[in-house]
């Protein structure tokens, strides 16, 4: 994923969630989100069927 897109995402989403991202930690947060984006790409590439769901079981 393009780094600039991740930077835009962090700059937009962090204030929305009230999370503290400033010059001191912005680079580290973006780097970590880049890593998650790469992992998300791996997961996207893994073939799934529509029925592959986690299927939470509720006990009552």
């Amino acid at each position, binding site marked *: 994923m393009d780094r600039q897109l991740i930077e835009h*995402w*962090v700059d937009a989403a962090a204030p929305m969630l009230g999370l503290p991202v400033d010059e001191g930690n912005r680079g580290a947060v973006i780097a*970590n989100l880049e890593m998650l984006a790469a992992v998300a790409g791996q*997961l*996207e590439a893994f073939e799934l069927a529509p029925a592959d769901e986690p299927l939470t079981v509720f*006990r009552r």
Partner: protein
Amino acid sequence: MSVLAGIEACLARIERFDPSINAFTAIVRDRALARAAAIDAARAAGTSPGGELEGVPFAVKNLFDIEGLVTIAGSRIEAERANPRPAAADALAVARLEAAGAILVGALNMDEYAYGFTTENTHRGPTRNPHDLTRMAGGSSGGSGAAVGAGLVPIALGTDTNGSIRVPASLCGAFGLRPTFGRLGRGGAFPFVFSIDTIGPLARSVRELALAYDAMQGPDAHDPGCAQRAAEPSVGALQADAAGNLAGLRIARLGGYFEEMATPEGVAALDVACAALSGLTSVGRADWPDAAIGRAAAFMITAVEGGALHLDDLRRFYNIMEPHSRDRFLAGALAPAAWVHRAHRVRRRYIERVDTLFADHDILLAPVVPGVAPTIGDDWIEIRGRRFPSRPSMGLLTQPVSCAGVPVVAAPIAREGLPIGIQVIAAPWCEANALRVAMALEQLGVARVSVPAAFA
């Protein structure tokens, strides 16, 4: 020796040796001595129930509730909230171990909120590896690994989301058990990733590992992730001649990903174990399906569930959160929901694929960590000429296993130099098989806990 004398000796060892490894964050001296005296009194009166754990000291990762103490989970936040409240009761696991006669002596250091593999805790200082004080103890249950590896306690409790029992057990030279996901109740244990967290013991012998595990089994009304199964004791399956009773177990070593992501030292430890077991039964080869995908799913779920759990802490206490992990938590909190939902769906399919392995195998063997303990502060490790960031990469070989939720024993392989362990992996709910094989390795002298001479 009286139980009181035994506990006094244990506390004296902790006082003498712990400053060099920094494993303990709290000692419950008065409580431990009172309990020991009560057991001695019950013995004298003939009313003691007895049992192998009676009078045995143990300690717990500081995310387990201990009545009267604030559960800090490796953080400053929990101790510094406006009104920090001490735990009103012991965690279920602590209560069950004490009901079996064991005696709690203290709480142990860990990575903040369990997000780490190194126990380089900035607030409390790093826990040091008893085999080389310049090296990491592993994590996140690093205090648990170091305390057992140094011989300060025979049993400790830890938690394992992505390898946090197995990694410190391997680096510090202790046995560790991550049971099947859902086997042990987590009531009173501070969570990290609800959908993967597991509690379990570390110990100096397989028998003590099994005794502690058995004592903690049973339903937990306070843990919706607990399978609520009746206890299935494992100690009965451990025979005096475990090495002579492996016939019928189908054992294989894992190749592919599990060899590619290990250093030659890690593979050599596995070679030793396989060679020993080959003298008792056949040891084949197997490939774990989609190991990298399993790790990817665990990585995503961990970051996002962890980030969501600590969303409010990130807002209010970012400045006093652990510098090693706070930006990982923050990135997890910002990840799109579709990413983690995909990860849960992938995990479901992944577990189904892993389960098919156990149609042909009862036990699978793999290294625990890529290599021996890195030096404290090292940011990188090298695996077969490739550099990896040390902190997340200590879980390369453990995350695919825990993502599948299967039980696994970490067994320290006897060798010159720093400890290194192997994973003995069993089918879901078959912890006893993994313990049998670990005990066979122990009886053969291939796996053992060697307390360093400096701690003798």
